[in-house]
């Protein structure tokens, strides 16, 4: 039995060649959730960009936020669209809204029984999931009901 929510073999997330999202992915490896916030106008932004979309200042700061949010939407996936998922069975994906970070949203899996009832608006807590044996190694942010 593997220790991760989904079986190994899915693609490893890596930063773009220009390094835009490197602080985010490096942060997850250290169990820190970093989100961009403009140093000039304090607008939160995710996914990252080189520019704040609100005031057009370059190079927003990366700010640590608590991995807590609420379920904004969800899906239970049944059809395997990758060989690594063949025979795995259903799994839950949630879109989590982070009230403490300007309502930015993040996609993750909802840990636990894949057949559990899911409610939009339910509060969730982030759980760091490490993939040290993947090549390259990476970490994900998963969610569990609080």
């Amino acid at each position, binding site marked *: 039995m593997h220790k991760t929510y989904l079986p190994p073999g899915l693609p490893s997330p890596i930063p773009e060649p220009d390094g835009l999202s490197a602080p985010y992915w490096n942060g997850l490896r250290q169990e820190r959730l970093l989100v961009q916030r403009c140093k000039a106008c304090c607008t939160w932004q995710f996914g990252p960009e080189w520019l704040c979309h609100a005031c057009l200042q370059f190079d927003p700061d990366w700010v640590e936020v608590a991995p807590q949010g609420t379920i904004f939407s969800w899906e239970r996936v049944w059809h395997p669209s990758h060989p690594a998922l063949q025979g795995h069975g259903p799994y839950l994906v949630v879109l989590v809204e982070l009230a403490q970070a300007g309502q930015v949203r993040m996609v*993750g899996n909802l840990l636990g029984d894949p057949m559990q009832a899911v409610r939009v608006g339910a509060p969730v807590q982030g759980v760091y999931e490490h993939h040290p044996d993947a090549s390259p190694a990476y970490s994900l942010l998963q969610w569990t009901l609080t």
Partner: protein
Amino acid sequence: MGASARSLRGQVAIVGIGETTYYKHGKSPDSEFKLALQAILRACEDAGVDPRDIDGFSGFSDERSDAVRLSTALGSRRLRTSLMQWGGGGGGCCAAVANGAAAIATGMADCVVAFRSLAQGQFGRFGQAGQVPAISGERAYLMPYGVLAPPQRFAMRVQRFMHEHGVHQEALRAIAMASYAHAQNNPRALMHGKPLTEEAYDASRWIAEPLHLFDCCMENDGAAAVVMVSAERARDLRQPGVYLLGAASGSGYRFGAMPHNSPRYASANFETLAQDLYAMAQIGPADVDNVQSYENFTGGVAMALAEHGFFHPEQANEFLTLENLTAPHGGLPLNTSGGNLAECYVHGFELILEAVRQVRGQSVNQTRRHEVSLVIGGPMVAPASDLLLGSANLL
């Protein structure tokens, strides 16, 4: 120059349509490029246009059958424009027509073909994720969590739409059943002879909740093409011209904010486009006689129809019924050829051909009124596109 001059309305007509035999994915006996040539030559024959007079090609979704090879193969006397809608995949099917029409209207070309060719057995499919060891950009935030292919990428938008507006599964089912009902009268359709019942829909497997198997488009091989010329030239040709009344493409404010960070999340991305479309066409939703709406997923069709003003989202359950969506007697006949779900998934281009047939009065599911047909490109993507086609009576 006044605003009225900066319009495609009535300036360009679709004068020929052509498609290949439609196949299940991987089943085409012919190469993708040969399918493109077949569809284009049939469209020229339908129009009574010499293929060597084609001086422009317009594609979308990274079309592989490229313009220079096509014009070379067809012996075109000269090539004057080669156009590709930038981004958005199947959301660009209407834009391919509009971009070609814009080239004609501005004197950049005289005879433009817009088309799509697909042989998915020879290339990749949309429905299976590429097997790569590492991924960056938007997909890095999705694929490691099992959000790999389009059904998983779009189901959460549909779920949120259903949550916000109390839309029931039966509304999605009606959209699927309308396509299948229409396909039963269409010998071109891959699902001809394979009717869909409510029971079969309800019993079908989930792909990604809230999407059943029958909420998702097929994947196919085939090609479809249209030939366009100026309104002036269209008057001398074989078929009655079907005129562009309006066209729009693009995206709302930060709709493309990834991953899944669109401010208006439960949206098909037509809120800004529909305004532009109706303004150019100088008509409104009440003037539309039938709709051909790209079904990547039925839930996206529901959103797209609401955003084009046919009903408020809270009325979706009442509006989206099989009876209301079926020709000839429904209030808004939808996908009268069978569309992406039941005719053939030519990434929506088959919908444009069906809209032309409707306006000409040549559909196998002809609607009672057929002066105006609306085509809606891939919902929930950016950029999206849409198109209003009409008869000469509208000009």
